[in-house]
Protein backbone atom coordinates (compact mmCIF):
# COMPACT_ATOMS: atom_id res chain seq x y z
CA UNK A 1 0.00 0.00 0.00
CA UNK A 2 1.02 3.61 -0.48
CA UNK A 3 1.26 4.09 3.27
CA UNK A 4 4.25 1.76 3.47
CA UNK A 5 6.02 3.40 0.54
CA UNK A 6 5.63 6.82 2.18
CA UNK A 7 6.91 5.40 5.46
CA UNK A 8 10.06 4.10 3.76
CA UNK A 9 10.81 7.41 2.06
CA UNK A 10 10.19 9.18 5.35
CA UNK A 11 12.47 6.79 7.24
CA UNK A 12 15.30 7.38 4.78
CA UNK A 13 14.80 11.12 5.05
CA UNK A 14 14.82 11.00 8.89
CA UNK A 15 18.05 8.98 8.86
CA UNK A 16 19.69 11.31 6.30
CA UNK A 17 18.82 14.34 8.42
CA UNK A 18 20.05 12.65 11.61
CA UNK A 19 23.44 12.01 10.01
CA UNK A 20 23.79 15.80 9.78
CA UNK A 21 22.55 16.27 13.36
CA UNK A 22 19.17 17.56 12.14
CA UNK A 23 15.57 16.51 12.71
CA UNK A 24 12.37 16.75 10.70
CA UNK A 25 10.79 19.28 13.07
CA UNK A 26 13.92 21.45 13.34
CA UNK A 27 15.01 20.30 16.79
CA UNK A 28 18.57 19.44 17.75
CA UNK A 29 19.25 15.80 18.78
CA UNK A 30 19.21 16.82 22.45
CA UNK A 31 16.01 18.85 22.47
CA UNK A 32 12.53 17.97 23.80
CA UNK A 33 9.36 19.15 22.13
CA UNK A 34 7.29 21.83 23.87
CA UNK A 35 5.90 20.54 27.19
CA UNK A 36 2.74 21.69 28.92
CA UNK A 37 1.31 20.18 32.11
CA UNK A 38 -2.21 20.77 33.40
CA UNK A 39 -2.87 19.25 36.85
CA UNK A 40 -6.46 18.80 38.03
CA UNK A 41 -7.81 18.43 34.47
CA UNK A 42 -10.45 15.90 35.58
CA UNK A 43 -12.31 16.68 38.79
CA UNK A 44 -13.92 13.23 39.01
CA UNK A 45 -10.43 11.81 39.70
CA UNK A 46 -8.66 12.09 43.06
CA UNK A 47 -5.70 13.51 41.15
CA UNK A 48 -5.10 14.10 37.45
CA UNK A 49 -2.83 15.73 34.91
CA UNK A 50 -2.98 16.37 31.18
CA UNK A 51 0.48 16.37 29.63
CA UNK A 52 1.28 17.54 26.13
CA UNK A 53 4.63 16.72 24.61
CA UNK A 54 4.52 18.37 21.21
CA UNK A 55 1.55 16.74 19.47
CA UNK A 56 1.43 13.85 21.99
CA UNK A 57 -1.27 14.17 24.65
CA UNK A 58 -1.83 11.87 27.63
CA UNK A 59 -4.18 12.17 30.56
CA UNK A 60 -3.43 10.45 33.87
CA UNK A 61 -6.07 10.00 36.57
CA UNK A 62 -5.67 8.73 40.13
CA UNK A 63 -8.37 6.87 42.04
CA UNK A 64 -7.94 5.69 45.62
CA UNK A 65 -10.18 2.98 47.04
CA UNK A 66 -10.12 0.99 50.28
CA UNK A 67 -8.78 -2.52 49.75
CA UNK A 68 -6.91 -5.34 51.46
CA UNK A 69 -3.10 -5.49 51.78
CA UNK A 70 -1.27 -8.36 50.07
CA UNK A 71 -0.43 -11.16 52.56
CA UNK A 72 3.31 -10.68 52.05
CA UNK A 73 3.14 -6.90 52.64
CA UNK A 74 0.59 -6.52 55.46
CA UNK A 75 1.76 -2.99 56.33
CA UNK A 76 1.68 -1.54 52.83
CA UNK A 77 -0.93 -0.13 50.52
CA UNK A 78 -1.34 -1.33 46.93
CA UNK A 79 -0.28 0.46 43.74
CA UNK A 80 -1.75 -0.32 40.35
CA UNK A 81 -0.68 1.39 37.13
CA UNK A 82 -2.47 0.88 33.85
CA UNK A 83 -2.00 2.56 30.47
CA UNK A 84 -4.70 2.44 27.81
CA UNK A 85 -3.60 3.01 24.23
CA UNK A 86 -7.13 3.60 23.07
CA UNK A 87 -7.85 3.48 19.32
CA UNK A 88 -8.84 7.16 19.46
CA UNK A 89 -5.18 8.12 19.80
CA UNK A 90 -3.62 6.73 16.63
CA UNK A 91 -4.68 5.33 13.24
CA UNK A 92 -2.67 2.13 13.78
CA UNK A 93 -4.48 1.07 16.98
CA UNK A 94 -7.36 -1.38 16.81
CA UNK A 95 -10.03 -1.89 19.45
CA UNK A 96 -9.56 -5.09 21.43
CA UNK A 97 -7.38 -6.55 24.16
CA UNK A 98 -4.30 -4.55 25.22
CA UNK A 99 -1.51 -4.71 22.65
CA UNK A 100 2.08 -5.51 23.74
CA UNK A 101 2.97 -1.83 23.22
CA UNK A 102 0.37 -0.70 25.74
CA UNK A 103 1.48 -3.32 28.23
CA UNK A 104 5.11 -2.20 27.86
CA UNK A 105 4.18 1.45 28.53
CA UNK A 106 2.15 0.41 31.61
CA UNK A 107 4.94 -1.70 33.00
CA UNK A 108 7.80 0.70 32.34
CA UNK A 109 5.86 3.56 33.94
CA UNK A 110 4.82 1.33 36.86
CA UNK A 111 8.41 0.18 37.40
CA UNK A 112 9.74 3.73 37.71
CA UNK A 113 6.98 4.73 40.16
CA UNK A 114 7.59 1.62 42.27
CA UNK A 115 11.40 1.59 42.20
CA UNK A 116 11.69 5.28 43.02
CA UNK A 117 9.41 4.75 46.03
CA UNK A 118 7.35 7.64 44.71
CA UNK A 119 4.70 6.93 47.34
CA UNK A 120 5.49 5.70 50.83
CA UNK A 121 3.26 2.62 50.71
CA UNK A 122 3.25 2.17 54.50
CA UNK A 123 1.32 5.45 54.70
CA UNK A 124 -1.40 3.86 52.58
CA UNK A 125 -1.95 1.16 55.21
CA UNK A 126 -5.04 1.72 57.38
CA UNK A 127 -5.14 -1.49 59.49
CA UNK A 128 -2.27 -3.98 59.00
CA UNK A 129 -3.31 -7.17 57.15
CA UNK A 130 -6.89 -5.90 56.94
CA UNK A 131 -7.38 -2.55 55.32
CA UNK A 132 -5.30 -0.32 53.10
CA UNK A 133 -5.67 2.10 50.23
CA UNK A 134 -5.37 0.85 46.68
CA UNK A 135 -4.01 3.60 44.48
CA UNK A 136 -4.99 3.21 40.83
CA UNK A 137 -3.11 5.24 38.25
CA UNK A 138 -4.84 5.10 34.88
CA UNK A 139 -3.08 6.64 31.90
CA UNK A 140 -5.30 7.49 28.95
CA UNK A 141 -3.37 8.21 25.74
CA UNK A 142 -5.36 10.76 23.72
CA UNK A 143 -2.96 11.68 20.92
CA UNK A 144 -0.05 9.36 20.11
CA UNK A 145 2.61 11.34 18.27
CA UNK A 146 5.54 9.49 19.81
CA UNK A 147 7.34 9.04 23.15
CA UNK A 148 4.41 7.80 25.20
CA UNK A 149 6.60 6.55 28.04
CA UNK A 150 8.01 9.96 29.02
CA UNK A 151 4.65 11.68 28.66
CA UNK A 152 2.83 8.95 30.61
CA UNK A 153 5.20 8.93 33.58
CA UNK A 154 5.26 12.73 33.71
CA UNK A 155 1.45 12.75 33.73
CA UNK A 156 1.29 9.98 36.36
CA UNK A 157 3.79 11.59 38.74
CA UNK A 158 2.19 15.02 38.35
CA UNK A 159 -1.24 13.50 39.06
CA UNK A 160 0.10 11.66 42.13
CA UNK A 161 1.79 14.82 43.41
CA UNK A 162 -1.52 16.68 43.18
CA UNK A 163 -3.76 13.86 44.46
CA UNK A 164 -6.01 13.82 47.52
CA UNK A 165 -6.80 10.73 49.61
CA UNK A 166 -10.63 10.61 49.74
CA UNK A 167 -10.68 9.48 53.39
CA UNK A 168 -13.87 11.35 54.28
CA UNK A 169 -15.85 9.92 51.37
CA UNK A 170 -15.03 6.37 52.45
CA UNK A 171 -15.50 7.11 56.17
CA UNK A 172 -11.89 6.29 57.05
CA UNK A 173 -10.94 9.70 58.47
CA UNK A 174 -12.63 12.97 59.36
CA UNK A 175 -11.15 14.82 56.41
CA UNK A 176 -9.48 14.20 53.06
CA UNK A 177 -5.73 14.78 53.01
CA UNK A 178 -3.05 15.16 50.32
CA UNK A 179 -1.33 12.03 49.04
CA UNK A 180 2.31 12.64 49.77
CA UNK A 181 4.90 12.06 47.09
CA UNK A 182 8.38 11.43 48.46
CA UNK A 183 10.29 11.07 45.18
CA UNK A 184 9.82 12.33 41.63
CA UNK A 185 10.96 9.77 39.02
CA UNK A 186 11.26 11.06 35.45
CA UNK A 187 11.79 8.92 32.37
CA UNK A 188 13.75 10.17 29.38
CA UNK A 189 13.61 8.20 26.16
CA UNK A 190 16.20 8.20 23.39
CA UNK A 191 16.31 6.50 20.00
CA UNK A 192 19.22 5.70 17.74
CA UNK A 193 18.99 7.06 14.18
CA UNK A 194 22.18 5.85 12.45
CA UNK A 195 25.06 7.15 14.54
CA UNK A 196 22.98 9.89 16.13
CA UNK A 197 21.08 9.44 19.40
CA UNK A 198 18.08 11.74 19.72
CA UNK A 199 15.90 12.45 22.75
CA UNK A 200 12.06 12.58 22.81
CA UNK A 201 11.33 10.79 19.50
CA UNK A 202 8.27 11.61 17.43
CA UNK A 203 6.05 8.80 16.12
CA UNK A 204 7.88 8.85 12.76
CA UNK A 205 11.29 8.83 14.45
CA UNK A 206 10.21 5.79 16.49
CA UNK A 207 9.26 4.03 13.23
CA UNK A 208 12.71 4.83 11.80
CA UNK A 209 14.61 4.07 15.02
CA UNK A 210 17.32 1.44 15.35
CA UNK A 211 16.77 0.92 19.07
CA UNK A 212 15.16 2.83 21.90
CA UNK A 213 16.43 3.34 25.43
CA UNK A 214 14.48 4.78 28.36
CA UNK A 215 16.24 5.85 31.55
CA UNK A 216 14.36 6.80 34.72
CA UNK A 217 16.12 9.01 37.26
CA UNK A 218 14.98 10.62 40.48
CA UNK A 219 15.84 13.89 42.22
CA UNK A 220 18.41 12.22 44.49
CA UNK A 221 20.63 11.23 41.57
CA UNK A 222 19.55 7.59 41.43
CA UNK A 223 18.84 5.66 38.25
CA UNK A 224 15.64 3.79 39.14
CA UNK A 225 14.58 2.01 35.94
CA UNK A 226 15.67 1.37 32.38
CA UNK A 227 14.12 -0.22 29.33
CA UNK A 228 15.67 -0.98 25.96
CA UNK A 229 13.04 -1.39 23.28
CA UNK A 230 12.61 -1.81 19.51
CA UNK A 231 14.99 -3.63 17.20
CA UNK A 232 18.53 -2.28 17.42
CA UNK A 233 21.56 -2.13 19.71
CA UNK A 234 23.50 0.27 21.94
CA UNK A 235 27.15 0.08 22.97
CA UNK A 236 28.06 0.49 26.66
CA UNK A 237 29.44 3.92 25.75
CA UNK A 238 26.10 4.83 24.15
CA UNK A 239 24.35 3.82 27.36
CA UNK A 240 26.68 5.93 29.50
CA UNK A 241 26.13 8.94 27.27
CA UNK A 242 22.35 8.46 27.38
CA UNK A 243 22.30 8.20 31.17
CA UNK A 244 24.21 11.46 31.45
CA UNK A 245 21.77 13.20 29.16
CA UNK A 246 18.80 11.64 31.01
CA UNK A 247 19.89 13.26 34.28
CA UNK A 248 20.05 16.70 32.65
CA UNK A 249 16.65 16.42 30.97
CA UNK A 250 15.18 14.70 34.03
CA UNK A 251 15.88 17.69 36.20
CA UNK A 252 14.14 20.05 33.80
CA UNK A 253 11.09 17.78 33.37
CA UNK A 254 10.81 17.28 37.13
CA UNK A 255 10.05 20.97 37.58
CA UNK A 256 6.87 20.41 35.54
CA UNK A 257 5.75 17.54 37.79
CA UNK A 258 6.38 19.53 40.96
CA UNK A 259 5.01 22.85 39.85
CA UNK A 260 2.56 21.32 37.46
CA UNK A 261 2.57 24.34 35.18
CA UNK A 262 4.52 25.37 32.14
Amino acid sequence: MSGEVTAEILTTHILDLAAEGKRLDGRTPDEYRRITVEPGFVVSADGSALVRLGDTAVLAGIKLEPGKPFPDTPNAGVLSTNAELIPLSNPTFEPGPPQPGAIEVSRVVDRAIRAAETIDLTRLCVTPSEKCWTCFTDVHVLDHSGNLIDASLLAAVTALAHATVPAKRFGIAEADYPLEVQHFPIECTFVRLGDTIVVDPTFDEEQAAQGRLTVATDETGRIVAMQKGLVGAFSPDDVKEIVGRAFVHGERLRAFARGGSA
Partner: protein
Amino acid sequence: MGSVGAKEVPVLLTPDGRRIDGRTLDELRPIRIEAGALHQADGSAFVEWGANKVMAAVYGPREVHPRHLQQNNKAVIQCRYNMAAFSVDERKRPGLDRRSQEISKVIAEAFESVVFAEEYPRTSIDIYIEVLQANAGTRCAGLVAASVALADAGIPMVDLLPAVAVGKVGGAIALDLRKEEDNYGEADLPMALVPQSGRLVLLQMEGHMTEEELARSLDLGVQGCRTIYEKMKAALRERYAVGPPAGGAA
Protein backbone atom coordinates in the same frame (compact mmCIF):
# COMPACT_ATOMS: atom_id res chain seq x y z
CA MET B 1 -40.23 9.59 44.86
CA GLY B 2 -37.14 9.10 46.96
CA SER B 3 -38.38 5.93 48.62
CA VAL B 4 -35.53 3.80 47.30
CA GLY B 5 -32.30 3.72 49.27
CA ALA B 6 -31.36 5.36 52.53
CA LYS B 7 -29.73 8.43 50.96
CA GLU B 8 -31.55 11.69 51.37
CA VAL B 9 -32.91 13.09 48.15
CA PRO B 10 -31.60 16.60 47.49
CA VAL B 11 -34.06 19.39 46.71
CA LEU B 12 -34.14 19.27 42.93
CA LEU B 13 -36.54 22.12 42.34
CA THR B 14 -37.19 25.26 44.39
CA PRO B 15 -40.73 26.69 44.62
CA ASP B 16 -39.77 29.48 42.20
CA GLY B 17 -38.76 26.92 39.55
CA ARG B 18 -34.98 27.01 40.01
CA ARG B 19 -32.93 23.83 39.74
CA ILE B 20 -30.13 22.51 41.94
CA ASP B 21 -27.55 24.63 40.06
CA GLY B 22 -29.81 27.67 39.73
CA ARG B 23 -30.88 26.98 36.14
CA THR B 24 -34.42 27.43 34.88
CA LEU B 25 -36.27 24.39 33.49
CA ASP B 26 -35.46 25.19 29.86
CA GLU B 27 -31.83 26.21 30.40
CA LEU B 28 -28.81 24.27 29.11
CA ARG B 29 -25.58 23.91 31.05
CA PRO B 30 -22.63 25.88 29.58
CA ILE B 31 -21.26 24.16 26.45
CA ARG B 32 -17.86 24.68 24.84
CA ILE B 33 -16.97 22.86 21.61
CA GLU B 34 -13.50 22.72 20.10
CA ALA B 35 -13.19 21.28 16.58
CA GLY B 36 -9.88 19.66 15.64
CA ALA B 37 -8.56 19.02 19.15
CA LEU B 38 -6.28 16.09 18.20
CA HIS B 39 -3.41 15.71 15.72
CA GLN B 40 -3.44 12.01 14.77
CA ALA B 41 -7.13 11.66 14.02
CA ASP B 42 -8.66 12.51 10.63
CA GLY B 43 -11.23 14.57 12.50
CA SER B 44 -11.72 15.34 16.18
CA ALA B 45 -13.58 17.46 18.69
CA PHE B 46 -13.49 18.17 22.41
CA VAL B 47 -16.69 19.03 24.23
CA GLU B 48 -17.00 20.50 27.71
CA TRP B 49 -20.64 20.42 28.71
CA GLY B 50 -21.35 21.33 32.30
CA ALA B 51 -19.01 19.02 34.22
CA ASN B 52 -18.72 16.58 31.29
CA LYS B 53 -15.47 16.40 29.33
CA VAL B 54 -15.67 14.29 26.18
CA MET B 55 -13.17 13.75 23.36
CA ALA B 56 -14.18 12.31 19.98
CA ALA B 57 -12.02 11.20 17.07
CA VAL B 58 -12.92 9.99 13.59
CA TYR B 59 -10.73 7.83 11.35
CA GLY B 60 -11.68 7.06 7.79
CA PRO B 61 -13.01 6.24 5.37
CA ARG B 62 -10.37 3.50 5.67
CA GLU B 63 -10.00 -0.28 5.35
CA VAL B 64 -12.51 -2.31 7.33
CA HIS B 65 -11.33 -4.23 10.41
CA PRO B 66 -12.44 -6.93 10.97
CA ARG B 67 -12.69 -7.59 7.25
CA HIS B 68 -15.92 -9.64 7.34
CA LEU B 69 -17.88 -6.51 8.33
CA GLN B 70 -17.10 -4.94 4.94
CA GLN B 71 -20.11 -3.93 2.82
CA ASN B 72 -19.87 -3.80 -0.95
CA ASN B 73 -22.35 -1.00 -1.44
CA LYS B 74 -21.50 1.40 1.40
CA ALA B 75 -19.18 2.31 4.22
CA VAL B 76 -19.73 0.68 7.60
CA ILE B 77 -19.93 3.10 10.51
CA GLN B 78 -18.39 1.77 13.70
CA CYS B 79 -18.54 3.54 17.03
CA ARG B 80 -16.73 2.89 20.29
CA TYR B 81 -18.02 4.83 23.31
CA ASN B 82 -15.73 4.34 26.28
CA MET B 83 -15.40 5.84 29.75
CA ALA B 84 -12.04 6.51 31.38
CA ALA B 85 -11.53 4.68 34.67
CA PHE B 86 -11.32 7.98 36.52
CA SER B 87 -14.28 9.67 34.80
CA VAL B 88 -16.78 8.69 37.51
CA ASP B 89 -16.89 8.72 41.33
CA GLU B 90 -16.28 4.99 41.78
CA ARG B 91 -13.36 3.88 39.60
CA LYS B 92 -14.71 2.10 36.55
CA ARG B 93 -12.88 -1.00 35.38
CA PRO B 94 -11.20 -0.16 32.04
CA GLY B 95 -12.84 -1.58 28.95
CA LEU B 96 -16.28 -1.79 27.41
CA ASP B 97 -19.17 -2.94 29.59
CA ARG B 98 -22.69 -3.71 28.35
CA ARG B 99 -23.85 -0.13 28.83
CA SER B 100 -20.96 1.21 26.71
CA GLN B 101 -21.68 -1.34 23.98
CA GLU B 102 -25.34 -0.42 23.81
CA ILE B 103 -24.55 3.30 23.66
CA SER B 104 -21.93 2.63 20.95
CA LYS B 105 -24.58 0.82 18.91
CA VAL B 106 -27.30 3.46 19.10
CA ILE B 107 -24.80 6.25 18.34
CA ALA B 108 -23.45 4.36 15.29
CA GLU B 109 -27.01 3.88 14.06
CA ALA B 110 -27.80 7.56 14.56
CA PHE B 111 -24.87 8.50 12.34
CA GLU B 112 -25.74 5.85 9.73
CA SER B 113 -28.97 7.80 9.30
CA VAL B 114 -27.15 10.99 8.22
CA VAL B 115 -23.79 10.00 6.69
CA PHE B 116 -23.66 9.46 2.89
CA ALA B 117 -22.15 6.02 3.45
CA GLU B 118 -22.88 4.88 -0.13
CA GLU B 119 -20.17 7.30 -1.29
CA TYR B 120 -17.50 5.05 0.25
CA PRO B 121 -18.20 1.37 -0.44
CA ARG B 122 -15.91 -1.27 1.15
CA THR B 123 -14.59 1.18 3.78
CA SER B 124 -15.07 1.88 7.44
CA ILE B 125 -15.71 5.18 9.19
CA ASP B 126 -14.59 4.71 12.78
CA ILE B 127 -15.89 6.95 15.54
CA TYR B 128 -14.19 6.91 18.93
CA ILE B 129 -15.75 8.65 21.91
CA GLU B 130 -13.84 8.91 25.17
CA VAL B 131 -15.59 10.20 28.26
CA LEU B 132 -12.88 11.76 30.42
CA GLN B 133 -15.12 13.29 33.08
CA ALA B 134 -18.77 12.33 33.46
CA ASN B 135 -21.73 14.22 34.91
CA ALA B 136 -24.91 12.92 33.20
CA GLY B 137 -25.63 13.33 29.51
CA THR B 138 -22.37 11.80 28.30
CA ARG B 139 -23.97 9.99 25.34
CA CYS B 140 -25.39 13.30 24.10
CA ALA B 141 -22.09 15.11 24.68
CA GLY B 142 -20.34 12.22 22.89
CA LEU B 143 -22.75 12.43 19.97
CA VAL B 144 -22.22 16.17 19.62
CA ALA B 145 -18.44 15.74 19.79
CA ALA B 146 -18.51 12.88 17.27
CA SER B 147 -20.72 14.85 14.90
CA VAL B 148 -18.32 17.81 14.89
CA ALA B 149 -15.41 15.36 14.52
CA LEU B 150 -17.10 13.79 11.45
CA ALA B 151 -17.48 17.24 9.90
CA ASP B 152 -13.85 18.01 10.83
CA ALA B 153 -12.84 14.80 9.02
CA GLY B 154 -14.68 15.98 5.91
CA ILE B 155 -17.24 13.16 5.90
CA PRO B 156 -20.30 14.19 3.84
CA MET B 157 -23.50 14.17 5.87
CA VAL B 158 -27.09 15.29 5.55
CA ASP B 159 -26.62 17.46 8.62
CA LEU B 160 -24.88 17.76 11.98
CA LEU B 161 -26.48 15.87 14.86
CA PRO B 162 -27.16 17.94 17.95
CA ALA B 163 -28.30 15.91 20.96
CA VAL B 164 -29.61 16.57 24.45
CA ALA B 165 -31.47 14.79 27.24
CA VAL B 166 -34.74 15.99 28.71
CA GLY B 167 -35.95 14.65 32.04
CA LYS B 168 -38.41 14.97 34.81
CA VAL B 169 -37.19 16.39 38.11
CA GLY B 170 -39.33 17.30 41.09
CA GLY B 171 -42.38 16.67 38.92
CA ALA B 172 -41.35 19.17 36.25
CA ILE B 173 -40.01 18.65 32.73
CA ALA B 174 -36.43 19.94 32.57
CA LEU B 175 -33.83 20.31 29.84
CA ASP B 176 -30.32 18.84 30.09
CA LEU B 177 -30.12 16.95 33.41
CA ARG B 178 -27.03 17.05 35.57
CA LYS B 179 -25.91 14.15 37.76
CA GLU B 180 -28.10 14.74 40.83
CA GLU B 181 -31.15 15.26 38.62
CA ASP B 182 -30.36 12.11 36.67
CA ASN B 183 -29.85 10.05 39.85
CA TYR B 184 -32.88 11.29 41.77
CA GLY B 185 -35.17 12.50 38.98
CA GLU B 186 -38.17 10.60 37.67
CA ALA B 187 -37.30 10.27 33.98
CA ASP B 188 -34.50 10.65 31.45
CA LEU B 189 -35.03 11.03 27.70
CA PRO B 190 -31.92 11.49 25.54
CA MET B 191 -32.46 12.40 21.87
CA ALA B 192 -30.54 13.43 18.76
CA LEU B 193 -32.11 15.62 16.08
CA VAL B 194 -31.53 16.06 12.35
CA PRO B 195 -32.19 19.81 12.29
CA GLN B 196 -32.95 19.99 8.54
CA SER B 197 -35.70 17.37 8.63
CA GLY B 198 -36.77 17.87 12.23
CA ARG B 199 -36.55 14.10 12.78
CA LEU B 200 -35.00 12.19 15.67
CA VAL B 201 -32.32 9.56 14.99
CA LEU B 202 -31.57 8.68 18.60
CA LEU B 203 -34.25 8.32 21.22
CA GLN B 204 -34.15 6.48 24.51
CA MET B 205 -36.24 6.81 27.63
CA GLU B 206 -36.20 5.53 31.17
CA GLY B 207 -38.56 6.45 34.02
CA HIS B 208 -42.16 7.57 34.27
CA MET B 209 -43.94 10.13 32.12
CA THR B 210 -47.48 10.77 30.98
CA GLU B 211 -48.34 11.14 27.31
CA GLU B 212 -48.71 14.89 27.77
CA GLU B 213 -45.34 15.14 29.57
CA LEU B 214 -43.63 13.19 26.80
CA ALA B 215 -45.06 15.53 24.18
CA ARG B 216 -43.76 18.55 26.06
CA SER B 217 -40.39 16.85 26.61
CA LEU B 218 -39.98 16.23 22.90
CA ASP B 219 -40.72 19.87 22.11
CA LEU B 220 -38.28 21.05 24.79
CA GLY B 221 -35.58 18.63 23.55
CA VAL B 222 -35.94 19.73 19.94
CA GLN B 223 -35.66 23.35 21.04
CA GLY B 224 -32.50 22.49 23.06
CA CYS B 225 -31.01 20.65 20.08
CA ARG B 226 -31.50 23.70 17.88
CA THR B 227 -29.53 25.84 20.35
CA ILE B 228 -26.73 23.26 20.45
CA TYR B 229 -26.79 23.07 16.63
CA GLU B 230 -25.79 26.75 16.47
CA LYS B 231 -22.89 26.12 18.88
CA MET B 232 -21.69 23.18 16.73
CA LYS B 233 -21.73 25.27 13.59
CA ALA B 234 -19.94 28.11 15.40
CA ALA B 235 -17.18 25.70 16.52
CA LEU B 236 -16.62 24.54 12.94
CA ARG B 237 -16.71 28.10 11.66
CA GLU B 238 -14.11 29.09 14.24
CA ARG B 239 -11.78 26.37 13.01
CA TYR B 240 -12.29 26.79 9.29
CA ALA B 241 -13.44 30.36 8.68
CA VAL B 242 -10.97 32.39 6.66
CA GLY B 243 -10.24 35.64 8.45
CA PRO B 244 -10.13 39.10 6.86
CA PRO B 245 -7.16 39.60 4.54
CA ALA B 246 -3.97 39.98 6.55
CA GLY B 247 -2.52 43.48 6.87
CA GLY B 248 -5.78 45.18 5.90
CA ALA B 249 -5.24 47.93 8.46
CA ALA B 250 -1.51 48.33 7.94
